[in-house]
């Protein structure tokens, strides 16, 4: 008798204890969430942008830091300040440090060709953002530059071509020749224009990503081609110079100007609103920040062998014109720092 009640009392205590134990174990586990938080906690992510201090990299970094803070891991940034050699050093330093994920934003298509496999051999996942080396890492998050060139050229062909009753005279103001943006984007444009014999490229000049050079080049092109129908730009930071030249020549109504960039409000939407740009293809930095965080989370949870299961998250491009412009078409850094990622 006594033995039986002893046993049942012991069982009751055990049940109570296990219930109390579940309560003490903290938040609800749906079968994945507990493991998710445990996986992310304490991890180390390293980020080498081509430079900090401009809208794209500051935006991505804001998104990365927000998620890191929320999930209890760290994102360390080394800023090579537009210097390829400094960037290579920074990457080498990080590889020696052995973080879990290495995020790269290469200025030069070739510079990281050896570093990507080296990092992977050390067991580090490599994510490349918006620009990538010839060698693929574990994930690419960013623009499909070929698609960018195609979309810009198609819009230009539609606006300035025969179908629109225009003369088809178009100028292209490009940037530094070694970047994927220029190399791959130009290929996209060439392929589209090859199908549109009514479009005539009257000038194709590089302005070296420098707005003052862009202004000089554009003003000369406009003087030479007073009947120009459209201009295609390569990056909003340079394109303000193109827009300045068009405005100065009093040709804003005549020349259709297509720009592109990360969709920062001051660089994109303000310029659409005041008529500097007629159309703008945005690769939407807040979206890229979210994708970047997703890539980090996917790699850390699925744990493939580095280099064995590469994937890409190409950014859907967003066309912004005066007609489609809304308060949420663009972003500001303050907003991203507050709730990005």
């Amino acid at each position, binding site marked *: 008798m006594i033995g039986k009640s002893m046993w049942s009392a012991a069982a009751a205590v055990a049940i109570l204890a296990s219930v109390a134990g579940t309560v003490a174990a903290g938040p609800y586990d749906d079968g994945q969430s507990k493991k998710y938080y445990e996986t992310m906690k304490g991890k180390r992510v390293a980020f080498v942008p081509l*430079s900090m*201090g*401009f*809208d794209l990299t*500051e935006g991505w970094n804001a998104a990365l830091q927000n998620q890191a803070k929320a999930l209890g891991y760290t994102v360390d940034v080394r800023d090579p*300040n*537009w210097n390829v050699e400094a960037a290579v050093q920074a990457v080498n330093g990080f590889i020696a440090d052995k973080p879990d994920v290495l995020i790269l934003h290469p200025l030069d298509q070739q510079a990281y060709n050896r570093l990507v496999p080296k990092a992977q051999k050390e067991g580090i996942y490599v994510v490349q953002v918006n620009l990538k080396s010839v060698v693929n890492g574990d994930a690419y998050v960013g623009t499909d530059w070929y698609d960018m060139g195609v979309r810009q050229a198609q819009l230009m062909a539609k606006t300035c071509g025969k179908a629109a009753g225009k003369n088809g005279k178009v100028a292209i103001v490009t940037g530094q*020749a070694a970047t994927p943006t220029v190399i791959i984007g130009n290929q996209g444009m060439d392929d589209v224009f090859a199908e549109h014999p009514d479009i005539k490229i009257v*000038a*194709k*000049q*590089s*302005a*070296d990503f*420098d*707005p*003052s050079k862009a*202004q*000089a*080049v554009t*003003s*000369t*092109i406009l*003087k*030479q081609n007073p009947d120009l129908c459209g201009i295609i730009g390569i990056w909003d*930071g340079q394109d*303000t*110079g193109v*827009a*300045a030249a068009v*405005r*100065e020549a009093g040709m804003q109504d005549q020349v259709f100007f297509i720009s592109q960039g990360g969709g920062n409000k*001051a*660089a994109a939407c*303000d310029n659409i609103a*005041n008529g*500097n740009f007629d159309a703008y293809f945005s690769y939407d930095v807040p979206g890229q920040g979210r994708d970047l965080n997703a890539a980090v989370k996917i790699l850390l949870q699925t744990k493939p062998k580095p280099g064995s299961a590469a994937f890409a998250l190409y950014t859907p491009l967003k066309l912004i014109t005066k007609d489609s412009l809304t308060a949420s078409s663009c972003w500001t*850094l303050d907003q991203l720092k507050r709730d990005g990622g």
Partner: protein
Amino acid sequence: MLRGLNQERIVFTIAVVLFVLFSVLLPGFLSAGNLLSLIQNVSILGILGVAMAIAIIGRGIDLSILSTMPVSAAWLLTLVNGGMPIGLAFVCALGFVIAVGIINGTLIAYVEIPAIFATLAMGIVVYGFGKAFMTPIDAVYTGRGESWFYAIGSGRVLGIPSPVIVFALVAAAAFLFLRTLKPGRFIYGMGDNPLAARVTGIPVRPMIILQYVIISIIALIAGIVMATALAGINTRLALSTMVYDVILVVVLGGIGLAGGKGGIRNVVVGTLLIGILLNGMTIMNLTYTVQSILKSVILLLAIVADTLLNPRDEQTAQHGDI
């Protein structure tokens, strides 16, 4: 017979030859609109050239102007975008460039660091300080204000683009300063022979500080023109090679690096040659790389021609020649 051909005249001749060639060969080159835009496109280079000339004539050099220019202008825009009245923001930027000038001048005059090293280091300091504390983002855009301030770089007066007018005003002011004012004459004296200048009683050290303050202020003017012309400015200019373009304009025009020689006219001639070259090559739709090659070849030719016609010897060579 060819002895009368100094470098300024050689460059001027090359400029005239190119001008005639382009006028005949390139349709549209000789239109009034194109000629104005030709000068407009090099006016910022010209304004910086004037500043650099003042440094080089006084046997100095200022490599920091390409940091001072974008950082001060970007700070001005940052302050205005943050709600400060333009006048007050300008006073702040002016204060900043004057401080930079004073530090440059003090390092050179009192600490006696050679100008080339003092200003090289100072340029990095200004860029780094600016990036860390004054303008967190490289590219700063002008707001949408309606003030006349925004027309400094993008407006027109009597049909002439305003950057051209600012260039003309800066050049005229510097010309009068160097020609007619005592401090201006002192700069020539210091450049020709600093020791003799000192013995004669010229206050060489304070004069050096004044010299670099003036240079910094001209850099701010160039920065304002650039920012208002392009609706924004990028501090990354400090990392570009534009400072070499500025030195080239000055040296190409015939201002010797040894100091004491030349004047503002040389800067104007050098600037015009570069302007004609760039404009003609853009009309011909040459690629960026080919343009750079042609530009440097013509610059080399001008310098070689000068060396052949005016060889250096014991009399003309000076201590401190680079």
